[in-house]
């Protein structure tokens, strides 16, 4: 390979990494709001993403007749996954998670935390395998004209470098960034956002101030699931949907969230972006099958090498 080809390769993967990373960033924001507000590690987060993907797939047009046209359709469907999965998340919280993680149990020792940790593992298994029962194991894909048309950048540097930027992915990434922005404004400016942040900082003091902390947790859980599901929906137009896809992505999401610093929304988004870059750029040096391993190793390194940062947050609560 010539030097120019190398550069072209790197640039190509860099673009791919940024585009995927933006969506990962969105998914990480969803996870981060749940952890940030409730201190709940939600193992089922990947399954809510998977539900978002299936939702987008079916709304977009399993019927063969795209509901909102075949250009905008996938994106409208992805955004609609938000409110739908919000409802699912709120229901799951009300029926299951909230029963073991009320603000009262957060004041107790570790036992309550383990209960919810294991509970969300159960929910994850149930949703993933339930989806397998309902949808079958075969991967499904959304095909759109946008996703198969690239913008061509270049030739740059004389005739040597030619970049292909997938139009579908670019639109999806732009929407992801927009949703993150809207969510950040909601959290920073609205009364609801303020109440959620107060409940996150100190649930007892929030109760003293008249905030219904259990309700705040429920809303946070629903919002977190919804945001991640939108991410899943956006991903569905470039990656095939499968029932058991969630578990890989839960690690992707935690890697991003931990990388960016637990509890910080901006950190979560940047963390997700970084993970997208790591995943794509690792393809330059590693075989394809090891892309995910690169993420897991990256995750382990972050968790193991920066524990003081993690403990900083955990200890403040203790």
């Amino acid at each position: 390979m010539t030097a120019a080809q190398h550069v072209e390769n790197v640039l190509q993967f860099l673009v791919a990494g940024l585009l995927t990373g933006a969506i990962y960033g969105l998914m990480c924001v969803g996870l981060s709001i749940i952890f940030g507000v409730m201190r709940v590690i939600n193992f089922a987060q990947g399954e809510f993403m998977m539900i978002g993907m299936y939702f987008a797939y079916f709304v977009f047009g399993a019927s063969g007749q795209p509901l909102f046209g075949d250009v905008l359709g996938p994106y409208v469907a992805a955004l609609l996954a938000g409110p739908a999965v919000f409802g699912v998340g709120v229901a799951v919280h009300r029926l299951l998670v909230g029963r073991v993680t009320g603000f009262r149990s957060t004041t107790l020792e570790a036992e309550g935390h383990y209960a919810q940790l294991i509970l969300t593992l159960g929910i994850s298994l149930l949703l993933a395998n339930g989806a397998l029962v309902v949808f079958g194991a075969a991967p499904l894909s959304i095909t759109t004209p946008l996703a198969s048309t690239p913008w061509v950048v270049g030739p740059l540097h004389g005739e040597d470098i030619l970049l292909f930027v997938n139009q579908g992915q670019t639109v999806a990434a732009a929407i992801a960034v927009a949703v993150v922005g809207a969510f950040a404004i909601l959290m920073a400016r609205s009364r609801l956002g303020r109440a959620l942040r107060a409940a996150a900082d100190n649930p007892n003091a929030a109760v003293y101030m008249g905030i219904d902390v259990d309700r705040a947790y429920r809303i946070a859980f629903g919002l977190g699931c919804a945001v991640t599901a939108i991410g899943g929906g956006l991903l569905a137009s470039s990656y095939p949907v499968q029932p058991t896809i969630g578990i890989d992505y839960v690690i992707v999401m935690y890697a991003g969230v931990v990388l960016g610093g637990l509890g910080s929304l901006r950190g979560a988004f940047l963390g997700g972006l970084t993970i997208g870059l790591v995943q794509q750029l690792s393809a330059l040096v590693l075989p394809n099958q090891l892309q995910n391993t690169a993420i897991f190793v990256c995750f382990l390194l972050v968790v193991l090498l920066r524990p003081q940062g993690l403990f900083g947050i955990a200890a403040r609560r203790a």
Partner: protein
Amino acid sequence: MAEQSPLLEIKSLDAGYGGLPVLHGISLRVERAELVVVVGPNGAGKSTLFKTISGIVTPTAGKIAFDGENLLAVPPHARAHLGIAHVPEGRQVFPSLSVHENLEIGASTRAGRTAWNENREKIYTLFPILAERGRQLAGTLSGGEQQMLAIGRGLASAPKLLMLDEPSMGLAPAVADEIFERIVAIHRDTHVSVLLVEQRVAEALHFATRGYVLETGKVILEGDNKALADTARIRRAYLGM
């Protein structure tokens, strides 16, 4: 007849954590516009008493009436809306929220929302530093400033009863004096009822209408400030002399 009854009336209250009892048959009342002080050694149950009033701890027996209403039937988060402001031990401001946002959270009760513009000015007059630091994150304030914010946050809810749990804890003496002065001013100027847990016994008793001494979860002494200030028991309890 709400006007006739005490603002807060606690009768034979038992409470504790995870099966271990802490409070035994506590009876206590706060009349309108009173400043009532509760003193006692660590582990006597003072904070538990406050948490029980706020609903974070569920009592095993006894009654709490607030403004003539059965408080135990009210869910914890709804109690703030009735007019109870709990300024907890160790301040517990929301560290990642700005000073202004902390106050706004305090003002999210119904009464607090209505009176917010007026209350904000009052709070800023009492604690000018809070106006200066309005956009700063509460977690970056000094201990004394955080205590002022915690009290301001309580006041923002336009309470009928202000419950202060050791507001001088861990503060330098000069700062503690300042905090104490403001508490007295708040009580004098707004006629809000104040229930105060304090270890600076002399100051607390000097300004209080009445006081209670708690030991091992029981009220062992109660009376008006003069009577309490004269008892040797207080001196002994705190200094062993």
